C-alpha cells in the first residue's frame, strides 16, 4: 500500500512530542500525546472531528503552546519558541482554514515564504523561488491573481506552495485535501509524494482516510485528544479501536463479528470523508 520510499535505513528522529497536553479551559484538546517522526517519512494523522488534530499541528507550528509536555525538533525543545523561530528552524505548515494574503497576488504570497522563511535571499531570488514553487504546485498560470480570487483547491495549493517556498525540513499539512474533488485529491497525493521524494519529512493531518492510507508510511490516530493507535496504515485501519472511534461501538462489534480482513478498512471509512 505504501508504495513510496520507505524511511532511510538509519532512521533518525526529526520531531518528537513527549507527553504533550493542551487544555482549553478544563478540556484537553490534546491529551498526553507522545510520538516521534522519523526523518524522511510521511506520517499520517487521522481522527474524527474534534480529535485534536489541528491543535496538535498548532502545538508543533507554534501558534499554540502546550499546557504540559515537550515538543522537540531535531533534539531541541521548541515549546517556547514563537512561530517565526520555528519556521526558521525548518518547520513549515499549512492551515486548515486557508490563510492567504488577500491583497497580495499569488506570486507575492509565495514570495513572502521564500523571503522570510529562508535566510539571505534577495527580492529577485525570492521571486525566482516563488516562480519555481508555483510551477511545481500547478499555480503558475494564476500567479497574478489575488489571494482571494482562488478556488478552494487552489487556495490549498497556495498554502502548500507558501510553506514549500520556505524550504522546510518538515511540512505539516493540515487537511489540505478537505473539500477537494476526487481528481484534485489524486493531484494532492501526487504532490505530497513528490515533496517527500525530495527529502522533506511530511506530517499529513487528514479526514480522508483513503488519501492518508495511500500516502503515509505510518498512521497515527487521535481520538478525544488521545493517541489510540500508531502503526502502518493497514494495521491501523483494521484496528477495532480505530473503527470504533470512527463509527461507534456497535458497528465495531458487528465488524469484529464479520471478521472480514479481506476488505481493507479504508474502503468503508471512505463513506465518512
Amino acid at each position, binding site marked *: 500500500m505504501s508504495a513510496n520510499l520507505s524511511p532511510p535505513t538509519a532512521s533518525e528522529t526529526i520531531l518528537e512530542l513527549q507527553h504533550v497536553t493542551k487544555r482549553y479551559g478544563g478540556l484537553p484538546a490534546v491529551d498526553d500525546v507522545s510520538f516521534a517522526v522519523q526523518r524522511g517519512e510521511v506520517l499520517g494523522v487521522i481522527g474524527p472531528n474534534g480529535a485534536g488534530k489541528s491543535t496538535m499541528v498548532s502545538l508543533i*507550528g*507554534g*501558534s499554540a503552546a502546550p499546557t504540559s509536555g515537550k515538543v522537540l525538533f531535531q533534539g531541541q525543545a521548541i515549546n517556547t519558541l*514563537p*512561530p*517565526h*523561530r520555528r*519556521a*526558521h528552524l525548518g518547520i*513549515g*505548515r499549512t*492551515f486548515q482554514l486557508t*490563510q*492567504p*494574503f*488577500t*491583497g*497580495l*497576488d499569488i*506570486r*507575492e504570497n509565495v*514570495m*513572502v*515564504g521564500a*523571503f*522570510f*522563511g*529562508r535566510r539571505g535571499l534577495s*527580492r*529577485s*531570488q525570492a*521571486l*525566482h523561488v516563488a*516562480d*519555481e514553487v508555483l*510551477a*511545481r504546485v*500547478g499555480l*503558475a*498560470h494564476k*500567479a*497574478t491573481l489575488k*489571494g482571494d480570487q482562488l478556488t478552494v483547491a487552489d487556495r490549498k495549493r497556495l498554502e502548500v506552495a*507558501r*510553506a514549500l517556498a*520556505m524550504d522546510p525540513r518538515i511540512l505539516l499539512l493540515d487537511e489540505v485535501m478537505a473539500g477537494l474533488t476526487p481528481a484534485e485529491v489524486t493531484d494532492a497525493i501526487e504532490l505530497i509524494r513528490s515533496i517527500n521524494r525530495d527529502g522533506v519529512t511530511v506530517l499529513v493531518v487528514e479526514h480522508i482516510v483513503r488519501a492518508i492510507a495511500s500516502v503515509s508510511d505510518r498512521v497515527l490516530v487521535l481520538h478525544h485528544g488521545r493517541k489510540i493507535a500508531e502503526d502502518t496504515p493497514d494495521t491501523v485501519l483494521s484496528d477495532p479501536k480505530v473503527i470504533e472511534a470512527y463509527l461507534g461501538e456497535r458497528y465495531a462489534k458487528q465488524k469484529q463479528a464479520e471478521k472480514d480482513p479481506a476488505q481493507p478498512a479504508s474502503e468503508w471509512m471512505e463513506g465518512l470523508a
Partner: protein
Amino acid sequence: MPRETSSTASNSPVAGSGPASGDATTTRAGRGWLWSLLGGLVILGGIAAIPTLGSDTLTSNWTIITMYIVLAQSWNFIGGFTGYSAFGNVTFFGIGAYAVAVSFLSNPKVISPYDPQRPQQFFIGLLAGVVISAIFAFLIGLPTLRLKGHYFAIATLGTSVAVEEIVTQRDVAGSGGLASPPFPPLSLHIAFYYGFVALALVCLLLTTWLARSKFGYALVAIRENEQAAQTLGIATTWYKVGAYVLSAIPTAIAGGIYAYYSSGFEPATVFTSSISVTMVLVTFLGGSGTVLGPIIGAIIFEYASQQFALSSGQATSVFGYHFGSDTLLGVAIIIVAIALPQGLVRVVQEFTRRPVAGGAGASGNSRANQFVEGVRRVRKFIAANGI
C-alpha cells in the same frame, strides 16, 4: 503600494518552465512604484515653489498642509502598511513639540534672543523629541501591538490623552503645560516651510523604499494575515514595533518644527485627538498603504478645510448652526468610510488598470470605450468596497 497587474508574469502558464522572461524583478505593479515616486516628487516640487508666488497667506496655509502631509505619511507606516489603526499618533507630535520647548527653556544661559546658541537649542530639542518619541513608541507598542483592531485603536487613543494629562499636571514647559518659550524670531520664516517640505520628501523616499523592501513586505504580510505571516517566518512583533517607531519619528520632528512655528502652544493644541483623526482620515481618503495616498489626501482635505474655515469665518450659518472645519472633518469621515474606504489613489489605479489579457475584452480601442470601461470598473470597485 500601487498594484496594477503585471503583464510579464502572466505569460508562464506551463508548469515546469521557470519564469517566462527571466526577469524576476517585476511584481507589485511592475514599475508602478516609479510613477508613484515621480508623482510624489512633482507634487512636492510644486509645493516647494509656492513661496515664490510671494503670498504670505498662501505660504502659511501650505505650511500647515505640508505638515499634515508629513503626519499622514508617517501614520501610513503603521496604519497603512501594517494595518494597525493607531489613533494616538498625535502623542509623538506633542512630545516633539514639548521637547523643543523644554530645550529652549532649559538653557538659562541663553537669554538674549539673538544668542548664537539658539538654533543649536532647536536641534537639540528636535533630537530629544525624536529619541523620546522612538523610545515611547517602542515601550507603548510592545504591549499594545498585541491588541487587534478596535482595541489597539482605543489603547493608542488612551496614550495621547494620558500624555496630555501628564504634561498639563506636571507643568511641563510652563504652568499647566502652557508653553511660550523664548524662541528667537527667525528672520527666515520660510525655513519652517522648507523644513516640512524636506521632511515630506524624506517620508516619500522612505515610503517608496518601504513599498519594495523586505521590511515593507513584512508589514504588508502582517496587515493581510498576521497568523500566516508568523508561520512563514516573519518576526511579527518586532516588525510591528519597528513600524510604530518609524511612524513616531517624523511625527515628532513635525511636532518640533510646529512648536517653533507656532511660537507658543498648550497641551490641548499639540495633543488634540483631532490631529490623530485627521492623520487617519486623510490617509484613508488618499489611499492607505499607498505611496501617493497620504500626500494627495492631506492636500485635498486640508485645502478644503482651510477654504471652509475661511468662508465660515465670514459667518456662514445654515439653519442657525455655525459650521466650522470640525464639521467638515465629520462629514469627510462619513463620506470616506462609506464610499471610499480604499481611497482615491486606488480608485484611479482601478480606472487606469489595463484589463487582464484574455478577459472580457468587450471594449474596443477607442478612448471613449476605454473611458466607459474605466468608469464601470470604478463603479464595481466602489460597490465592492464601499456602498
